[in-house]
C-alpha cells in the first residue's frame, strides 16, 4: 500500500515551513523512523521520518517549497517492504511444524499516530494544561502523561529528564548532581541563530548612559490621565521605541541590512522587543513604529507580550524586524552587550535604573541613571554612526520634548 508522509504539526502556532534537504530520493528505501527530509521554519528546523518502511515513489514538495502542516511531502510504497519479506513465507510453507508463537518474525511497525496519548489528554484536562504548549517526548513526538505532569509542575517540559545519580552515598532527598535534558526546538533555534549572528557580523558594542529624570517625571505626571484615556499603562518602552525611531532616522545605516553585495536601507521602523517566556527568548515585532502614537505602541506591546506568554505568537509577528530592543533591566542587569538579531545591524540594550552620584554643573547630584548599550554590525555601521545613534537616543530620552518637536 502507498502511504503519504505529511508535514507534522510544527508547534507553537507555526503555520508554514520550507522544505530543506531531501535525505532520501525517489526510489530510495527508507526504514521506519529513518530521516527522509528536513523542514525549516524561522523558529525550528526539524527532521521528517518515514512513518512506515518502504520505497519513496514520489516527492511532492521539492527543496525550497513552502508547505503547511498536513501537506503531503512524499509517497512511500510499503509493498517494497512486503517484497523483502516475501522470501520467508515460502520457508514457512515448507516447514509445516514451524509454528512457535514466540516466532514474531514479521517486522511490524511500532504504532503511533503522533499526537497525544489518551492518558496524557486526561491528565491535561485534570491539571488545566494547554496541550499545544507541551513538547511530546514519546516516539515520534507523541505527548505522554509524564510530559503533561512535568509541564503542570514546572510550567514547561524540557523533555525526558535523565537523572544521573552521583554514586553510592547519594542522599535520597538531594537532587541529582547533573541532569541531561535534550534541547527543545526553540532552544536549538535560539542557539543556532545567536551563534550565526556572532559568526557573520563584525559585532561590537558602544555604551552610553542616560539620565532618566525627565521621563520618570513625565510618567509620574501623566500616568493616570494616560491610563484613563488610552486604557493602557504608560511604560518606558514607548519612549525608548520613539527615541530609537528618531535616532534611526538620523543614522539610517543602523536600520539597514546586508544582502549579498548590497545594503538595504529601510524607510520603515519595525522594532523587535525581546521578551522572555517560559519556553525561551522570543522577539515579537512592533510594526511601523514611525506611525504609532505612544498609546499605540504601549497597546501593541501588551498584546504581543500576552501572546508570547501564551505561546500564540505567529511567525508573522516574530519576523521582519528592522531593529531590536532588549531590556535586561527588568531582571536587574546593570550593563551588558546584547547580540544582534540577524540580519539586523543594531540592537539596543536597556538596563536597570540606578540612582548614582553624577556631576552636573560642578555639583554632585543624585540622578536616576541607566546605562545604554548599542551592539552593531561594523560591516554596515561605522563607529561614528553608532556613537551618534546612541547619543541621539540619549538626547531624546533626557529631553523628551525633542520627540514632539522632531529635533
Amino acid at each position: 500500500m502507498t502511504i503519504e508522509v505529511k508535514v507534522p504539526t510544527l508547534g507553537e502556532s507555526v503555520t508554514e515551513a520550507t522544505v530543506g534537504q531531501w535525505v532520501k530520493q525517489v526510489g530510495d528505501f527508507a526504514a521506519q523512523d529513518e530521516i527522509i527530509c528536513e523542514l525549516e521554519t524561522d523558529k525550528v528546523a526539524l527532521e521528517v521520518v518515514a512513518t512506515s518502511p518502504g520505497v519513496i515513489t514520489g516527492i511532492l514538495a521539492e527543496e525550497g517549497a513552502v508547505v503547511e502542516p498536513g501537506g503531503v511531502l512524499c509517497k512511500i510504497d510499503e509493498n517494497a517492504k512486503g517484497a523483502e519479506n516475501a522470501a520467508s513465507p515460502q520457508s514457512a510453507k515448507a516447514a509445516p511444524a514451524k509454528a512457535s508463537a514466540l516466532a514474531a518474525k514479521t517486522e511490524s511497525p511500532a504504532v503511533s499516530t503522533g499526537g497525544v496519548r489518551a492518558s496524557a489528554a486526561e491528565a491535561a484536562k485534570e491539571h488545566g494544561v494547554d496541550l499545544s504548549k507541551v513538547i511530546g517526548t514519546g516516539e515520534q513526538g507523541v505527548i505522554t502523561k509524564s510530559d503533561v505532569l512535568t509541564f503542570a509542575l514546572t510550567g514547561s517540559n524540557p523533555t525526558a529528564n535523565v537523572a544521573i545519580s552521583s554514586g553510592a552515598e547519594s542522599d535520597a532527598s538531594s537532587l541529582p548532581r547533573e541532569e541531561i535534558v535534550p534541547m527543545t526546538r526553540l532552544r536549538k533555534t535560539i542557539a543556532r541563530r545567536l551563534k550565526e549572528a556572532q559568526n557573520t557580523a563584525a559585532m561590537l558594542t558602544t555604551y552610553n548612559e542616560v539620565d532618566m529624570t525627565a521621563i520618570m517625571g513625565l510618567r509620574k505626571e501623566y500616568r493616570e490621565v494616560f491610563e484613563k484615556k488610552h486604557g493602557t499603562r504608560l511604560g518606558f518602552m514607548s519612549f525608548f521605541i520613539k527615541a530609537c525611531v528618531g535616532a534611526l532616522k538620523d543614522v539610517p545605516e543602523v536600520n539597514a541590512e546586508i544582502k549579498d553585495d548590497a545594503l538595504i536601507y529601510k524607510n520603515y521602523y519595525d522594532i523587535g522587543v525581546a521578551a522572555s517566556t517560559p519556553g525561551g527568548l522570543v522577539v515579537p515585532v512592533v510594526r511601523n513604529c514611525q506611525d504609532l502614537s505612544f498609546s499605540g505602541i504601549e497597546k501593541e506591546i501588551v498584546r504581543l507580550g500576552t501572546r508570547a506568554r501564551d505561546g500564540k505568537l505567529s511567525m508573522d509577528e516574530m519576523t521582519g524586524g528592522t531593529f531590536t530592543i532588549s531590556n535586561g533591566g527588568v531582571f536587574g542587569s546593570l550593563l551588558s552587550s546584547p547580540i544582534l538579531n540577524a540580519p539586523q545591524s543594531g540592537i539596543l540594550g536597556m538596563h536597570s535604573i540606578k540612582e548614582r552620584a553624577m556631576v552636573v554643573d560642578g555639583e554632585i547630584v543624585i540622578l536616576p541613571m541607566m546605562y545604554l548599550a548599542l551592539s552593531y554590525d561594523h560591516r554596515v555601521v561605522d563607529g561614528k554612526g553608532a556613537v551618534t545613534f546612541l547619543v541621539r537616543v540619549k538626547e531624546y530620552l533626557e529631553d523628551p520634548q525633542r520627540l514632539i518637536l522632531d529635533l
Partner: protein
Amino acid sequence: MSHYDVVVIGGGPGGYVGAIRAAQLGLKVAVVEMRGALGGTCLNVGCMPSKALLHATELYEEAEGGMAKFGVSMDNLSIDISKLMSHKDEIVDGLTGGIAYLFKKNKIDYIEGRGKIPQAGKVNVALNAGGDMVLETKNIIIATGSDVASLPGIEIDEKDILSSTGALSLKKAPKELLIIGAGVIGLELGSVWRRLGSNVTVVEFMDKITPEMDGEISKTFARILKKQGFNFKLKTKVTGIKKSKKTLTVTTEDVKSGKTSDIKCDKVLVAVGRRPYTSGLGLEEAGVTVNERGQIEIDHNFKTNIDGIYAVGDVVRGAMLAHKAEDEGVACAEILAGFAGHVNYDAIPGVIYTMPEVASVGKTQEQLKAEAISFKSGKFPFTANARAKANGQTDGFVKILVDVKTDKILGGHIIGADAGNMIAELALAMEKGLTADDIAYTCHAHPTETEAVKEAAMAVENRPIHM
C-alpha cells in the same frame, strides 16, 4: 437498527479489551461474538484452560516424586481426570462470565451472532438465537482471531486426531500420544498428558524444537524435556495418518534422506500453528485486502485499505499472542478516539508455560547475528541462584543481549521455573530503552529468582558476583 461509534467483530483478547478501552474513552460500542461465550480462543480453548491443566498436573508430578528430595512422600496418590476437567471448565466459565460483567459495567452491547461486513459502516449479524440484525457504525474493528491449522491430507476429527481444543478435553490419558509440531502448543499440551501418563513423541520438521527461539535456550529446553521423558523426532515430517480400529499409524518421512517410517499411537495432536480466521466475514464483498498468508493488510493505524474498517490481533501481521492482540485493541481504540496509540513490537514477551518455563522478549542471538548487529551477552544459571537452589528448581538460566555501542538491551531470554513472570522486568527495560547497567544498579530483593536477571546484567560486563 442501531448507530455505534465502533462495532467489534470478535470477543477475544483483541476484541473485548479494545471494546472496553473504546467505551472508557466515551465511544458507543457493540461486540459481535458467535462462540456463545466471550474471551475468544485464549479463554475458552487456549491459554487459560491449558494453564489450569498445566498447573494441576505440575503439582501432581511434584507429588509423585518431585518432592521426595524434601522428604515428602505420598502413598496411594491418584488423579481424577474428570474432576480436573471440571475444575478447568469452572475456571473458563468464571473468566468468560467476568468479561460479560465488564461489558455491562462499560455499557457495551454484546451481540451473540455471526458478523458479516457488507460494506464500511454496516455489520450484518446472523443472531445465534435466530434472525438477523443490522448494525450501523462509524468504525468496524475486525478481531476474529485465528483457527487451528492442519496439514494437507490430515483431517482433525477431535476424537483421534486432535487440535489443541480436543487435547484440552480428553477423558483419559492416551497411552501413546504423537504430537506434530514442537512449538508452544505442542510442548505445553505434551507436558500435560505426559504428566498424566502418556508416552509423548513429538515430530518436528525443523532441526530443533521451538525453532524461532534463541538457540542456546532451545538446546537447553530440549535437553530438559528429554530428561522428563519427551521423545523428539526432528527433521521429520508427517505424510499421512491411517486409522485402524484401535490404533493410528502415522507415516513420517526423514526430511533429508526421504526415508519413511511408521509410528503407532492412540491419539495424534496436530500443533502446526494457527491461521488467521476471516471466512464468512465478507471481506471480499467489502473490498478489504487480505495477503497471501490470509492476514488482513493494515497500515500503522490498524486501518485496512477501506476507510472505517480496522483489524487487530491474530488476523493481522505479527505474533499470534493474546497480549499482543490486547495491546493492539487498546491502541486501535485510542486511535479511533482521536489519540495516539502505542504498541512496541520490539518488546512483546512470549512465554511457554512448561516446567521449567521459557520466556523471551526482543531479539535472539541468531537474529542479531543475521542482522549483523554487534552485541554482547550476559548469562547467569539458576544453579548459582540461592532461591532457585532452596526451591530445588535449578534448571535453566537468564541470558541478556545488549548493543555493544549503547549497552541497550536488545533481547532477554529466560528458561527457568518462574521465567514467565521474570520476563516482565526485561520487557519493561526494553520498552523504556534501559541498559544492562540500569538493571545491574537496580536493587533486587534477596532471595528471589529475579536476582539472576540482575546477575545476568552484570555478566554482560563480566562481573557477576555469584559466579
